[in-house]
């Protein structure tokens, strides 16, 4: 039984189609990154998983429980960090966590949870004065209550500084090692690349990909970046690289010429760069960045979107 299963889920809000026939599965023990630009339908998908919103068509199950028929069974096993939630300002961080602890019938110490997310010193401050990052840490602490089997984190790194984002990633890994399945949405690609086993990409309410990062790279089919450093760079060499078929996004940085190209065009790029008689000092290749992958899937530039 998978942790999460969506079958042909669609959702309309009035005349607006927010989700269109979305199906995917998240296995137990996976860290699954749910990627997509703002407005792609990520939060709507999460809202349907948690029965905050009802699908217009399709079904969702979490650990075999139908999300619409047995929402409390789903919530009993799930830790939730909702996106764009208000927080009652006159309550302290400890009181907010206490509500989650008492509600779940847990006996954890709220202070220990707040310590884990790094805001133990602010436990007795009211959250009205909290920064966005502190609020996000508090929400994570609430989500961790009761050692849930599934963590659903909606844009967890919103407003976090680099330290906070790193702590978030560490906690995701720790929870995953404990055995929890983690499902989190993001439009921040580094977050996804750093911790996810698999990613799903949502664009315009439709799931355009669901695969491992390597699998996605393969399917997009292009594109590495090749950087050739020359001893005597010249305009003619750059022009020659630009003229090559299958090569794009040529950039010049000092003595280096770099270009996006498929693997079988790398030799041609090196040849073209030497055309003016320059010697090659260094050659570097990089895999496609996640950013490029993301753009390829969500803007359809590569034309091979799954």
């Amino acid at each position: 039984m998978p942790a999460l299963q969506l079958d042909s889920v669609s959702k309309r809000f009035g005349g607006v189609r927010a989700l269109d026939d979305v199906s995917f599965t998240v296995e137990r023990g996976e860290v699954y990154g749910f990627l997509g630009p703002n407005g792609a339908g990520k939060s709507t998908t999460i809202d349907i998983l948690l029965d905050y919103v009802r699908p217009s068509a399709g079904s969702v199950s979490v650990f075999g429980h139908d999300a619409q028929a047995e929402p409390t069974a789903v919530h009993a096993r799930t830790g939730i960090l909702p996106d764009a939630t208000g927080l009652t300002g006159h309550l302290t961080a400890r009181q907010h966590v206490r509500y989650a602890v008492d509600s779940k019938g847990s006996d954890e110490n709220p202070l220990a949870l707040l310590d884990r997310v790094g805001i133990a010193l602010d436990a007795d401050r009211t959250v009205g004065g909290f920064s966005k990052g502190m609020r996000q840490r508090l929400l994570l602490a609430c989500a961790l209550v009761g050692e849930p089997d599934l963590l659903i984190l909606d844009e967890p790194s919103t407003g976090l500084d680099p330290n906070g984002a790193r702590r978030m990633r560490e906690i995701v890994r720790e929870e995953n090692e404990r055995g929890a399945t983690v499902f989190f949405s993001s439009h921040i690609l580094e977050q996804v690349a750093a911790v996810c086993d698999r990613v799903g990409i949502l664009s315009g309410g439709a799931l355009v990909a669901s695969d491992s990062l390597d699998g996605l790279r393969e399917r997009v089919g292009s594109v590495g970046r090749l950087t050739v450093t020359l001893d005597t760079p010249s305009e003619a060499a750059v022009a020659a690289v630009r003229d090559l078929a299958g090569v794009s996004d040529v950039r010049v940085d000092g003595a280096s010429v770099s270009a996006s190209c498929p693997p079988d065009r790398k030799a041609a790029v090196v040849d073209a760069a030497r055309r003016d008689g320059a010697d090659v000092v260094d050659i570097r290749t990089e895999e496609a960045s996640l950013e490029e992958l993301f753009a390829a899937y969500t803007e359809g530039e590569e034309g091979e979107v799954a």
Partner: protein
Amino acid sequence: MSGRLRAVVERDLRDPFRSRAVWPVLLLFVVFFGGPVALTGGGRPGAQAPGLLNQMQIVVFLFLPLAALQFGYDRVAGPRETGEIRLLLAPPHSRRAFVLGTFLGRAAFTALLVTVGYLVATVAYAAVVGVPDPVRTVGGYLLALALGVAVTGLAVGLSASMSTRGRATITAAAAYLTLLTFWESIPTAVRFVGNGLRAPTGPQPEWAVAFAQTVPTRAYRNLAANLLPNAAPPDIVTAGPPAAVLVLVAWTVVPLAVGIARFERADL
């Protein structure tokens, strides 16, 4: 496994203290409940003494519904508007349980306000006039509790029916006016329309009087009248004690049931 409802109840009961919103209201309760008794000396002494219950009636009638609505109207609609409802429902509370827990917490809070008000009034009465009639005092206190709980049910039920705080505010204001006067004006409005948009003449027909009794504020007064020696509730079946109790229960339960049904169907 479902969530521990107690956490919801506690959250709602303690919130007015945590936000400190309780203190001005508590002060008003002390002033409005204790003030009249202390100032008038419990009315004229002797056989005509209105007694504590009589004096409390108008305060309870005007002030208690306002407080119960004020503390209940935004408890569901408010978090729904800000998105905090997702966090409040993140633990395994069903939506129905969440609304019921909210109602219980707020009803306990309303009961606390009534209790403090009545204690202050009783002490003031005892100091200025003498020991009040125990049956009327305890009876009046229990009736005030029942009215407070009914209006809390109405407030929380309305709140669960509304998607934004703004709508909840307007509805709560309309509910207060309904409790005070509108409900009893409905028969007159119906007669006005039925009379070809002309003011109706003659005495109130029986159905109009019967209808006017079916609002909790009136049910409270009809029940209180049964405890007082020289008050006479209308001689009609809807003003009798069984009907009045039914009115109080219905105004607690029906809005809650409607609110829960609407909240359960809603996209949050």
